[in-house]
């Protein structure tokens, strides 16, 4: 059975030969593959080679993260607003990084929602609240990395998929508007906005839906959706700002998330919902995630949410994905990882519809033997047909 077939059966809530295993290996690939961040971002052939080398150390996996995030970081337009804002440019030539991998900075880069809705993000991007290096590139560079480089990048990954017979984790990446706003405004400001001017936040989220959806689908098309296995998947991040109450989730997160999911599926894409934080209190709401949609189009990738409860609440509606803790991968042992994986498999795998994976992503500083233990555990404990 091919990796893609195994994953397809899981998406369709069916049992394959075994539980698929797909740790979200992102920055750990260049780290173990021996390249720096600049090479990871700008030299796709090197990234692909580093990925092949690192995958051997990490025990493979049934798909591969093509790091679409790098394309988004290099794009000055589109969702570049938050990508540019979250990228710490000190990492550029370092690995391990002296600076930070892209992370949330509590620095608001937009203040006026109406202005953005009227004039787009250009105003926000050029308000000089971003790092100077962001603006240091030439117009030629901007145009190349916006329009030409994605094709070069896609070609490298297409070759990888054909040679390795391993599908992509995603073809495009979409961000929930509420997540985007936490980067644009900072979580503290967004919290105040949600309580003080909820209608404006909803209006801005509505404006961002189309903006973000179109860009994600464009990326997926460039990556080969319909031809390259896995490129038809939109990776829908990140589950909203941390600490939303069910009241806030139901009003600000869920309706928009469902609208975006429906849009992607109706346009022929699949949706990998990569939702962080503990969403256990929201499982009942999320049980409607596949309402009105054909089977096999949605996967729910959870981080801190109770996976057993998730299986009980919505395991018959959507494929689940996750969630070996990051700390275990960095500070645990293969035995501990194996034990944790066995529990996940026991809780989530019966009947199919489950992919064994990491929390948000495999930390770049994880112990390789611990990451390998995830795939080993899928083979050891995840056999459906003996």
């Amino acid at each position, binding site marked *: 059975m091919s990796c893609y077939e195994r994953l397809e059966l899981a998406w369709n809530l069916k049992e394959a030969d075994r539980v698929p295993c797909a740790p979200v290996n992102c920055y750990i690939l260049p780290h173990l593959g021996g390249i720096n961040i600049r090479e990871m971002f700008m030299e796709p052939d090197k990234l692909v080679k580093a990925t092949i080398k690192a995958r051997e150390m990490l025990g493979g996996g049934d798909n591969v993260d093509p790091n679409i995030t790098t394309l988004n970081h290099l794009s000055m337009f589109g969702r570049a607003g938050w990508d540019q804002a979250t990228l*710490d440019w000190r990492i550029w030539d370092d690995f*391990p990084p002296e600076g*930070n991998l892209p*992370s*949330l*900075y*509590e620095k608001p880069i937009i203040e006026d929602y109406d202005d953005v809705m009227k004039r787009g993000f250009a105003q926000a991007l050029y308000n000089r609240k971003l790092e100077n290096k962001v603006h240091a590139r030439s117009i030629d560079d901007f145009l190349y990395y916006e329009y030409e480089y994605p094709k070069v990048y896609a070609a490298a990954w297409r070759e990888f998929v054909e040679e390795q017979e391993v599908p992509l984790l995603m073809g495009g990446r979409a961000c929930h508007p509420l997540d985007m706003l936490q980067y644009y405004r900072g*979580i*503290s400001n967004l*919290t*105040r906005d*949600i*309580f*003080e001017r909820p209608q404006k936040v909803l209006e801005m989220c509505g404006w961002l839906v189309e903006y973000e959806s179109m860009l994600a689908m464009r990326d997926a098309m460039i990556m080969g959706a319909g031809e390259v296995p896995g490129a038809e998947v939109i990776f829908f991040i990140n589950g909203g*700002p*941390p*600490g*939303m*109450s*069910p009241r*806030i989730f139901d009003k600000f997160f869920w309706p928009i998330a469902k609208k975006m999911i429906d849009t992607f599926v109706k346009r022929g894409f699949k949706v990998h919902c990569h939702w962080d934080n503990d969403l256990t*209190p929201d499982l009942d709401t999320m049980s409607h995630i596949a309402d009105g949609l054909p089977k096999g189009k949605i996967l729910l990738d959870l981080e801190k949410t109770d996976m057993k409860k998730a299986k009980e609440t919505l395991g018959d509606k959507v494929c689940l994905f996750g969630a070996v*803790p*990051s*700390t*275990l*991968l*960095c*500070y645990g042992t293969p035995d501990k990882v194996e034990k944790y994986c066995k529990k996940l498999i026991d809780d989530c795998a019966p009947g199919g519809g489950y992919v064994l994976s990491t929390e948000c992503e495999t*930390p*770049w*500083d*994880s112990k390789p033997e611990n990451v390998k233990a995830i795939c080993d555990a899928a083979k050891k404990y995840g056999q459906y047909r003996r």
Partner: protein
Amino acid sequence: MGKIADAMAALDKDALMAAVKEGLASNTDPMHLVEEARKGLERVGADYEKGKYFLMELMWAAQIFKDALALITPKLPEKHGSTAAKGRIVMGTVKGDIHDLGKSIVRDLLECSGYEVVDLGVDVPSSAFVDKIKQVEPQVLGLSALLTAAVTQAEATIADIKKSGLRDKIKIIIGGGVVGEINASDFGVDFATINASEGIRVIEDWIAKQKKGA
């Protein structure tokens, strides 16, 4: 409970501000108004720990408390002169980690509860912690660490504090996403938590005990 505490506990900013303005207009002791608001904030904290409120609501509570305090504070010196803080805490997110949120929530809640907080910001090298501890002599040091990679930085910070002979003079608490899944004793700290409200209670308890012992 008065109107101010009730409005605070209900997270109703409009009602809170109206009640504060009413109290000030009727010449109520401004310190009483602050204490009322704090009672409401304590109820929010209790409801957060019970799972009735969530983190975002806790943040909003701290924000509207500060809004109310901005109205009350100018009136305090007239009646009470300058008021002393209950205690002093130095805080910061350790080197290599730029996450601000968790630390800021705890900082805001501590300030709302009457403590002086010296916030060193994010990506703070251990030498900056050591220097600030020497300079302001806090009772408590609060470290924040969200990323897995921050764990080693937190350990390095504590090692430098020990080397500087300061470890026995302060209590150290660490909070942040990565902390909940690792044994607190591994860090060499006095307490580790991922729960802001619990962290505040522990800090308040330490400072209260220290005052009793003094």
